[in-house]
Each structure stands twice: as C-alpha cells, then as structure tokens.
C-alpha cells in the first residue's frame, strides 16, 4: 500500500467514526434525550438526519473493511457527504430567503445557526477530503452523458 493510500484510509476511518458518532447523537436526540452538549454540537434530534449520517458513516466503514480496493467507497462516501452538505445549505438558504422576503414576523428570531447541523459541517470535512484526494479518486474517468 502506498504512503498516500495510508493517509486516505486514515481519513476514511476518521470520517467513518465521526459520521457514525454524530448519527448516534442525532438518534438519541430524536428519542428525546436532552443534553446541553447536543445543542452545542448543533444536533437537531432529527431521526432522518440520524439515518443519513449513519448510512454515510457505514459507507466509509465498509470501505475500510475492503481488502482489495476501498477507494470507490471513499469516493461515494465523500460524494454523499458533499451532496448532503449541498442539500442542507440549500435548506439553510431557503430559510434565509424566507426571512429576507417576508421579514422577521414570518420566522421569529431565526439565525443561520438554527439551520446548522452535523451533516453540514461534516460535509465540509468530506468536501475538503474530496479536494485533497481528487486525483486518487479519479472522478475524471467518468464519462459524459449523451442520453
């Protein structure tokens, strides 16, 4: 295994751990457990968010288990992380837009931080990883659609 791959694998392990951990946090938040530290981490307690985080974490985790070549798992894992980062950003933006257009009576005291969630900042981490290992994960070998 090349030195480069070792970094990638470690990073994958880190992301696996983080996504799975926060997935669990969101899950217990969803069940009703109320802890100060959950709020500090911007955990929303949303069951679907928990599922998303757990699945992405699982993708990275399975990738670590692959003996042959786990790079596809890294690629997909990061892609999913980025996709959901985008989705959560759009949601945040939609809320902000709503605030902008209708003024603050429509949504009392909303700030951008209200829409922050682990999927968002972990997604940023995934994006960074995607940039660093851009070439290793070879998205350039995907072809252009013609259908």
């Amino acid at each position, binding site marked *: 295994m090349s030195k480069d791959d070792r970094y990638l694998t470690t990073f994958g392990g880190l992301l696996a751990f983080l996504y799975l951990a926060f997935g669990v946090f969101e899950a217990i938040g969803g069940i009703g457990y109320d802890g100060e530290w959950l709020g500090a981490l911007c955990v929303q307690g949303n069951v*679907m968010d928990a*599922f*998303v985080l757990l*699945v*992405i974490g*699982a*993708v990275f985790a*399975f*990738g670590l288990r692959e003996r042959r*070549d786990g*790079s*596809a*798992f890294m*690629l*997909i894992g990061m892609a*999913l992380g980025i*996709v*959901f980062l985008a*989705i959560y950003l*759009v*949601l945040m*933006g*939609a*809320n902000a*837009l*709503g605030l902008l*257009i*209708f003024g603050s009576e429509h949504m009392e005291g909303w700030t951008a931080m209200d829409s922050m969630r682990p999927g968002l900042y972990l997604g940023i981490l995934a994006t960074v990883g995607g940039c660093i290992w851009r070439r290793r994960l*070879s*998205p350039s*070998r*995907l*072809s*252009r*659609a*013609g*259908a």
Partner: protein
Amino acid sequence: MSEVTDEGAKKAIRVALCGNPNVGKSSLFNALTGSRQHVGNWPGVTVERKSGYRNYRGHRIEIVDLPGTYSLIASAKDEEVATRYIIEEDPDVVLQVVDSSNLERNLYLTMQLMEFGKPMVLAMNMSDITEERGDSLDLDALKRFLGTPAVRTVASQGIGLEDLLDAVVGAATKPPADRRVGYGELEATISDLREMIDKDGEISSRFSSRWMATRLIENDSYVRRLLSDRSIWQDIEPYLSRMDREESEMDLADSRYSVIDEVVVLSCRRCKPKRSVSDNMDRVLVHKYLGIPIFLILLWGAFELTFSAATPFMDLIDSGFAELGTWVADNVQPDWLASLMADGIIGGVGSVLIFLPNIIIMFLILGILEDSGYLARVAFLMDRLMNRIGLQGKSAIPLLMGFGCNIPAIMATRSIDDRKDRLITIMATPFMSCSARLPVFILFAGAFFSHMAGTIIFMMYMIGIVVAIVTAKLLRTFVFKGEPSAFIMELPPYRLPTIRSVGVHTWDRAYMYVRKAGTIILLGVVAIWALASLPFGVEYGGEDSWIAIIGKVFEPLVEPLGFDWRIAVALLFGFIAKEIVVGGLMTLYGAGESEDALTDALKADGSLNQVNAFGLMTFSLLYMPCVAAAGVIWGETRSWKWTLFSVAYGIAIAYVIALLIWQIGGPLFG
C-alpha cells in the same frame, strides 16, 4: 429516393432515426433538429412520435425518431412501429445511432436493419467514451465490411454532426450497398419460404421476400399479419409449424453474431473490455447492505429538496398573486370583471404556478439521476419488491414521483417498455398522495386532530400506498393473469450528466406540465368561478349560487359518507384540481381571510367531526387525482377505456372506503 434535377432543385430527404435505448439517440435528434421538432403519436399505439427537420446545404432533411429497441422482431403492435415506418413510409435513409463503446450488441440491430435494403448511415456515438478507454474504431474498415458509412459523433457535445449530415445526403443519392447476413444452414429454409411467398405477386413486389422469410421464422407479428389472410398462408402455415422454430431462431441469432464477431475483429483495435469505474462504483451503490440504505437517503434528500427548497419561492408566488388579486379587486371595474380576474383567472393561474418551483426541482433531480444512469440501479434494487406486488423495478420511480405530483409521475411510466407493466403502474400511481392533496390533509387534520395531526397525515400516505399495492396486485391477478413479464434491463455505465441535457429535459417536462395542467386547471377554475358567481348578484359561493345548487343535488349521494352539500361542492372543486379545494372551502364557509378562520369555521360546523373529517381526507386522497392527471393518463394510454376505468375506479374506491368509515366509524366514535 431523393433526386437532384437538372436545375439543382432538391426534394426533402426523409431519415428514419433508430438505435438501441441509452445510446444518445435523443441527444442526436435534439442536436440535429433543435427547436424544429414536433411531437405526436403513432396511430393505434401508445408510442410517442417525434419528428423534426434540418436544413442543410440546400436540402431539407426530415427526421423521424423511431423508438429505441434492441431488435426489430415484434410480438405486439407497440413494437412494430419502427418496422412499419420503414416499410410503409419508405424513408430515404436509415440512420442508426450506435453506442461505440458497446459495439457488439448494438450491431445486432444493424444486421436487422440492413435486411431492409435501404441506404444506411451509422452514427458512431459516444466516441468520447471509447477514446477515453483507449479503444479505437477503424471506421473505414467498418464501412468496407458493412457497406455503410460510419461517422464518429459525440451528440451531447455536438461533435460530428456536419460529417453525419454529409453522409446522410450522400447515402440518399446513391444506391444502397445491399449486404445481408448469410444464414448458413437456414438458407435452405429461407429459400423454401421465399418460393411460397413469391407466388403472391402483389406481396412480393411490395416487400422483399427474403426479409419476410426471416421474419416469419422469428414469428414477427407484423409480417404474420401481412400474410395471414393471403392465400399463400395455406402453404406457409403448415411449413412453419413443422419447423423446429426454436432451433431456427437460435441459428438466426447465432449467424448474426458470427458476422458481428468478424466485424468487431476487423474494425476494433485494442477493444479490450476493461473493468470500468462504473463497476467499481456499483460495488458501493448496489452493495448488499449499503445499496438500499443509500437509495433511501438519496430519496429522502430528493424530497427534502423538492419540498423545503421550493417553499420560499412558493410563498413568494403565493403572496405575489395575492397582491395582484387585491390590486385587481381595488382597481378594476365593473365588479364582476374584477371578480373574474381576481378569483377566477389569477386564482387559477396562481394555483398552477405555485407548484412550478416544486415541479422544476423534481424534474431537475430526476433528470440528473436518469442521465447519470443511477435510475437503472434503482430499478435493479427495487425489482424484487415490485415483482411481489405485480410490477417491476422500473415502476418504482413513477410511484415514488407520485408523492410529488402525479402528472410527471404518470409521464415517467414511459420508461417501462412492457405494456402490461406500464398500464398497471399507471393505474396504481394516482393513489400515491401528491403534494396538492397535502393542504386538505393539513387543514382537516389540524382542525380535528390537533396534536395527532402528523400521525393522521402519515396514515393518509399509508392508505394511499396500500390501495396502490392492492390495485396492482388485483390487476395483475385478474386482468392480466397468465401473462408473465420479463425484466431484462441494461445497466448502462455511470456518466456525468451534462448541464445541457439535464436542462433540456427539465425545460421540456416543465413546459409540458404547465401546458397540460395549466390549461385544464385554468379552464376549470374559470368554470367554477362562473358557477359560483351566477346567478348575477349572488354572494360568491353562497347558498344561492349555481354551484351550491349543484352541490345540493349531490348531497343525497354523499350523505351516507357523512358529508353535506358544502363538502360535495369542495369535492367537485377537487375534481378539477386538488389545489383549489381549500380555497373553495374558504369561499363556501365565508372564511376567506385566512386558513385559521377556515379552521374555526369548520370546527364550528356541527356536522363535521373527527370521523367524517377522516372520511373526507380519505375520499380526497383516493378519488381521481385531478382532471389534468386524467388527461395525462389518456395521453399515455391512448385508451378511453383505461382512462375512464381509472377515474371510475378511483371514485368507487374512495366512495366505498369513506362509506365504511362513516357507517362504521360514526356509531363507534361519533
């Protein structure tokens, strides 16, 4: 044949565009014809006919886009379209779009097309993929062997189009190369059949007897029909039944592939199939444990985007139209005109446009998933489940889309090639609760179930799904019994969708939605406005208006369901479009200022309680989604029988279930 007269005046060149599915045929068609397209229907079948034209170097080139197919052998009318066009309308050139990265299978169709004896041109599409893989095609060798010019194209980037058009023009003016596959041992059988066919002078002068002979061996429905009431059929039929058809069919296929093997060897340098990135990605996306969860989160993400991201735009449009309505009410005289414009037209247009952000985002996401190739994986993952309920993998997508809006969902059933599967899916989709039904749920669940509202709404979705599944199962078991379908689907390599193709698709579909849904809803809203405002001077939607009278006429019908005339009227509104039910109720209860006022008015109405509210929600969930949807059902099935069945069935199911709810639930809970 296109002729060039002495004066140089040129007639139109008619081109039949064919090819396998997934080869970029639509991209090429769009690239060649641009906006000069016309969409219609092939008579007698449910297949869409696209035609367009392009002016090139003084020629007018008319292109008809034939349905994508792997083989021309037909067993049903839908599959005969390509053959019939080529035989009956006699185009000048047959242009086949070939996926150069998938040469072997694509050439199967080429072998069949060559048997028509018409001038042919091959568009070797997706050359970018081939080149990236390091393969290279010797197009001259291809041309020498097959006798047809092969032009390198990349339709999605507009590469090679001029060369292609040159080849088409050239082919139209030269006699065809007329090469056919030699069928070895079968040639004797083919001669026998030809002898018999040639006895019918009329048939053999119009059609090639060799072509008909081979088709007969393969049991093609079109040729059978052509010959079965001729006198020669007396001799042909017994001959065919004595043959070992199965063995002969395999021989035919085998011969074609033998030729293809030779072609590939001669023309493809360095064509080694490599394990591509696609297969690698499939290890994750179709993973035994990860595959379905990944699909689920992507599905959820898609819905989140469609609903939540669209909300500010929807609110914007909503308030914009409200402002417009108020302005009109204040500034336009006479009153009836103001009312027509504000309540009728603006309200109507508004109720269509308000869903536009929703629809556009949904089409965008669908386009990306489709072009990337992921949707085929979804069908692959879901097929087992779908099979259990009588459908197939490709039905999963329309059903899921139905949660957003039934209209594009029903339109999406086009991707299902099996006619029975497609029909059953179309019948089941309307029960998937679309976003237009939500306002009614929210209103009534909120008014009558307060803290349980969320659960109740969830139950509505579940009821819809259950009815859809039962419908599919029933249709498969009783109407289509004994007709198995096969699920044989290509899993194309993953591709990066181009902004261009996704954009074009999205625009096309959104435009169709606005046109189809828009026109009907607008007309409907104006009609309702008229009924609610007449006779002159009556209170809009009040007890003396015509629409109330109609409602009262229906009242006895809906009494067993626990509804009164106002609900009947609201349901009539909902017939036109679910979006206007809430607005209609506001009018009827005189609570037009806000939804809260309506909620209060509803609660205050002594005739409404939890039971019939539940019944009402169920009824509005299940009865025909909206006229626009019925219109789309007709568009996709081309059959009044099925369209009316869908409508009647929906109403019947809705009625029966609401009846049960009121008759049983009333005494129990009322």
